[in-house]
């Protein structure tokens, strides 16, 4: 998965688990950037009566770096608190929820947004309402209106939303983690079977999304509007994290006392890095450090394990990749430094030589009306790895890159294997349970519990 349950430690702490991160120039408001940070992987929609919610004990951060130092220059911190209306019921709601202040809604969540810049913290807003989860036609009969009411414009100009959305990431989990099987190419696998269509393993599940839309010029280092794609100041690095207090004491009566500074327990920049690049023994440590410490992980990007496995799992399909032993400067650029000028015509998102796993977005590249799901590999400079849009097929893009499709960007003597530019797991955005929205917060409406169908009953 992109970063769902991607490390042993965080897989046991889903409330703090980053699952996906998106950063893109808003297609309907091009002067703004939208950042979506998803948490809580694979929520079954029918998970009541204690439905999924953000953690009151977690600090959720969205970080922006706008200079060559990958430490955060701007951080938006989201803190949640849960309020019960009725201590005497086991129910999430005692009647239809038709508004965010519905007396029937028993367990509500509110949040604050704090901006941290130049070492100073400023609370931008507090008491912002989350929408309820999508329960079903009797409990949440007009879910779209509830979610829309939970979009808040802050006095400082940002638009925020925090609540449940449909899982927008699409991937054939069942096949990929069954010894790297890609169903459309199964007849070529070391253990072959008939080719088949892909199965979206995240279909039908929900996530919790923190969405932030902010003016582009509020993110540049000098406050200027990014209009020139060649300028370094047009590029930002984005990453998200979840943090817990250093100390937790569980009292005999069940009360929990937390104390000490925030400790990062999960982070996410580019999709799939901790998932399929970092070795299992290092994954928890990777989650605990900031991107500025990524130099110790560079070797796993420059010599990815998966690039060595593909020729073994698909005998005879990747002879050129099998023979390529040089360090993967292409992957280092895509994932850790950004792509310098002169490699992809009309494009750069280079943030400097210091390796750091961040989504890098050149904000001067305008959004397109005809996005290509393969992003820059498909000739669409507005897509991954220029930031990441919800519809970008990051599984196929990264599979192709690791298989060698992007090596010629840095080594013209290399000829990619024919399969490298065809790799895909057979899933697409059309497999999602809910379509993406054309406006903020862009991810589709969550699947409701009543109408959800367990996979083996479908």
């Amino acid at each position, binding site marked *: 998965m992109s970063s769902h349950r991607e490390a042993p430690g965080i897989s046991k702490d889903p409330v703090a688990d980053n699952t996906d991160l998106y950063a893109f120039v808003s297609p309907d408001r091009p002067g703004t950037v939208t950042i979506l940070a998803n948490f809580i992987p694979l929520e079954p929609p029918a998970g009541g009566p204690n439905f999924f919610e953000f953690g009151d004990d977690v600090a959720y951060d969205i970080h922006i770096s706008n200079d060559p130092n990958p430490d955060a220059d701007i951080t938006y911190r989201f803190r949640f608190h849960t*309020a*019960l*209306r*009725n*201590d*005497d*019921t086991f*129910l999430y*709601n*005692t*009647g*239809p929820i038709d508004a965010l202040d519905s*007396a*029937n*809604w*028993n367990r509500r969540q509110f949040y604050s947004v704090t901006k941290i810049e130049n070492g100073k913290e400023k609370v931008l807003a507090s008491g912002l309402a989350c929408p309820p989860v999508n329960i079903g036609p009797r409990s949440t009969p007009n879910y779209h209106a509830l979610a829309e009411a939970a979009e808040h414009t802050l006095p400082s100009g940002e638009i925020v939303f925090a609540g449940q959305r449909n899982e927008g990431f699409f991937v054939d989990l069942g096949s990929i983690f069954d010894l790297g099987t890609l169903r459309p190419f199964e007849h070529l696998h070391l253990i072959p079977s008939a080719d088949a269509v892909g199965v979206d393993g995240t279909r039908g599940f929900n996530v919790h999304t923190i969405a932030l839309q902010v003016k582009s010029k509020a993110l540049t280092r000098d406050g200027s509007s990014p209009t020139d794609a060649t300028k370094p100041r047009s590029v930002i690095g984005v990453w998200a994290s979840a943090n817990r*207090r*250093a*100390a937790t*004491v569980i009292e005999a009566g069940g009360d929990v*006392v937390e*104390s*000490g*500074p*925030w400790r990062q327990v999960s982070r996410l920049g580019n999709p799939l890095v901790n998932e399929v690049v970092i070795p299992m023994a290092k994954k928890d440590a990777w989650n605990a450090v900031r991107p500025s410490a990524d130099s110790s992980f560079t070797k796993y990007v420059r010599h990815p394990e998966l690039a060595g496995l593909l020729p073994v799992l698909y005998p005879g399909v990747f002879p050129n990749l099998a023979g390529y032993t040089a360090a993967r400067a292409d992957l280092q650029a895509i994932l850790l430094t950004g792509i310098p000028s002169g490699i992809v015509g009309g494009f750069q998102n280079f943030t400097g030589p210091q390796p750091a796993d961040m989504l890098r977005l050149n904000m001067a590249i305008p959004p397109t009306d005809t996005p290509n799901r393969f992003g820059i590999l498909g000739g669409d400079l507005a897509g991954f790895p220029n930031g990441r849009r919800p519809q970008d097929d990051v599984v196929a893009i990264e599979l192709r890159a690791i298989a060698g499709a992007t090596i010629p960007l840095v080594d013209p003597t290399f000829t990619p294997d024919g399969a490298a530019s065809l790799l895909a797991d057979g899933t697409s955005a059309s497999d999602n349970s809910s379509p993406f929205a054309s406006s903020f917060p862009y991810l589709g409406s969550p699947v409701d519990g009543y109408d959800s169908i367990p996979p083996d009953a479908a």
Partner: protein
Amino acid sequence: MDDLSRREFLRKGSIGAVAGAVAISSGATISKVASAKAAEMPPTAEEATASEPIVAYVKQGARGEVRVMVGSQEVVHDDPELARRIIRASKR
């Protein structure tokens, strides 16, 4: 569940929810008053710290390092005597 009992269920639920909301509002008011008083007479640093739980953590007593956590802060003490006293206090 027939129509009558379903309506009764929803009605009871709503009453309960309103009662809960009143209780929460009362709590918020008391908390606000307390905050106003606190603003008039700001607590000393010692008083503020004393009102919060404090966690002391001795990872390697031999090194004499004691990490004391309070609120969102962590203070690291290099204090072998303090470490020894905490270690002694940990003995049954």
